[in-house]
């Protein structure tokens, strides 16, 4: 199977050690990923894969290890053990390559409050090394689609939360990443803004972007094709929402979660 993976775009042949699986086949491939902080094991040997174009829900209680795992997948934190590939690249050996291939948006948005919408877009384009023309073309397209075009001269600090959220999404996908990590992207956002946000997420997924999302909204968990649930650093459940409900006999994802995580 190694040979098949070697032909995949962007997959380094020498560093592959994923056994029978070709990392390039998956958007995210995780094998025995572990992170310890002193005596504390935040992420405890997790293994799973996410297919290209999939919307994957990464759920768990506060403190279950989700953010630590995401930081490793984004190449921001080195694993203690195990390996992971994102868009075919190993997070340990090629963290810089990964950073160019992923988009990341968190509940804190990471926008510059004292810049305008347009300036935030241009600045982000600069960070990713996009040409001025690329920034203009793709930026205009995104601002139009996000409903922000008429507000591009507005100072970011003056925007309602829902607008900031859409701008943050725009900045996270400006460089056309193949995998988009969303860490509680809709925290504190109202129902209407949330629904509009998810319409955009589906559009991105239809265009081939893989979506890796954490959320505390269990109705959003139902929007995912598959979800994993983490407890104390381990993935204890992983399947489609429909099958998880079937397996646990629960009526909603909320009940599934309470059963799986319930202390």
């Amino acid at each position, binding site marked *: 199977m190694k040979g098949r993976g070697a032909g995949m775009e962007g997959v380094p042949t020498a560093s592959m050690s994923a056994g029978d699986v070709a990392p390039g086949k998956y958007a995210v491939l995780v094998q025995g990923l572990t992170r310890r902080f002193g005596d504390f094991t935040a992420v405890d040997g997790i293994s799973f894969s996410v297919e290209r174009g999939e919307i994957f829900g990464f759920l*768990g*209680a*506060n*403190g279950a290890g989700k953010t630590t795992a995401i930081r490793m997948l984004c190449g921001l934190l080195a694993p203690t053990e195990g390996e992971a590939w994102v868009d075919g690249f190993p997070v340990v050996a090629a963290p810089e390559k990964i950073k160019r291939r992923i988009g990341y948006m968190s*509940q804190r948005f990471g926008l510059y409050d004292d810049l305008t919408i347009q300036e935030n877009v241009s600045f982000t384009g600069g960070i990713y090394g996009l040409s001025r023309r690329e920034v203009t073309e793709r930026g205009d397209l995104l601002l139009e689609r996000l409903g922000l075009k008429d507000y591009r001269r507005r100072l970011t600090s003056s925007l*309602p*939360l*829902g607008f900031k959220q859409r701008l943050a999404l725009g900045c996270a996908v400006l460089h056309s990443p193949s995998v988009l990590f969303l860490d*509680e992207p809709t*925290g*504190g*956002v*109202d*129902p*209407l*803004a*949330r*629904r509009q946000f*998810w*319409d955009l997420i*589906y559009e991105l997924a*239809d265009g081939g972007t893989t979506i890796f999302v954490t959320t*505390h*909204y*269990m*109705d959003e968990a*139902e*929007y*995912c*094709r598959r979800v994993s649930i983490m407890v104390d650093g381990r993935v204890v459940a992983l399947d*489609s*929402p*429909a099958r998880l409900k079937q397996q646990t006999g629960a009526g*909603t994802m*909320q009940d599934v*979660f*309470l059963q799986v*995580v*319930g*202390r």
Partner: protein
Amino acid sequence: MTDTVIPILVEGLRKRYGEINALDGLSLRVEHGEIVGLIGPDGAGKTTAMGTVCGLVRPDDGFARVMGLDCREEGQRVKEHIGYMPQRFSLYSDLTVAENLRFFADLFEVSSSERRERQERLMAFSGLAPFLGRRAGALSGGMKQKLALCCTLIHTPDVLILDEPTTGVDVVSRSEFWTILRDLAGEGMALLVSTPYMEEAALFDRLILMHRGRAVASGTPGEVRSRFGQRLLEVTGPGIAKARERIVGLRWPGVDVHRFGDRLHVVHDLEEEDAGIREALARVDVRVGPVEPTIEDTFISLVTHSPEAAG
């Protein structure tokens, strides 16, 4: 605490900030033992409404009363009856759980014997008892919210006002938090609570959907759902991507399609459209059938289709 007094009574509240009508004739009431939910988009006026009830915001018109006391004229006495937890409740992260509780007890001039008795009860029902000596900064998100709640309850209020107390808190902690709220209501407390989580909406005794400073619907969760003024079809099956294209391709102005994982929800206005939508999907591999709207569906329908929303 007399049962004849309405714990929270709000009539025709108006509040303007420059050009913005933060409150535009809001009326509501909360009875003893009731948990009433305020739901609405950012800027709907939820926080201003809560601030008025707490006597922190002076209304331009209308009134708010807590336990029969006018919130504008008798603000100081009103505060004795209210526990208020704002969106960003400040705990002292360097102080322990016990020290935080003592600080808020002192603030509300609770005597030390009263405080000890109250603290014991609060710690028992919040499950925080084992953590009395832990610094607040070292608590998990869910535990911090519980401690904040305990601090607002230290002076035994009749009325509890919570502004998005469960935002950012995981499902398990949220469920525990709701058990606590139910216990408090069971003791006769009146609770006014805002939340962005629609799955919590069904847990309220009554709901008020707010939009542009006023209530666009109110009642029990069932009554609110019955205000959904449109038609809702659910589309399921392997062909939903195709189905979506077909429906969007109809270009009918009143028809909205939303995707929810393995299903589509098609919202439309007219009975005639129903047949047209089914016809467009006749040769697509999907099942089509009417479904009951959720509170979120109702909310979105009311705020996007009400005449005020158009302006």
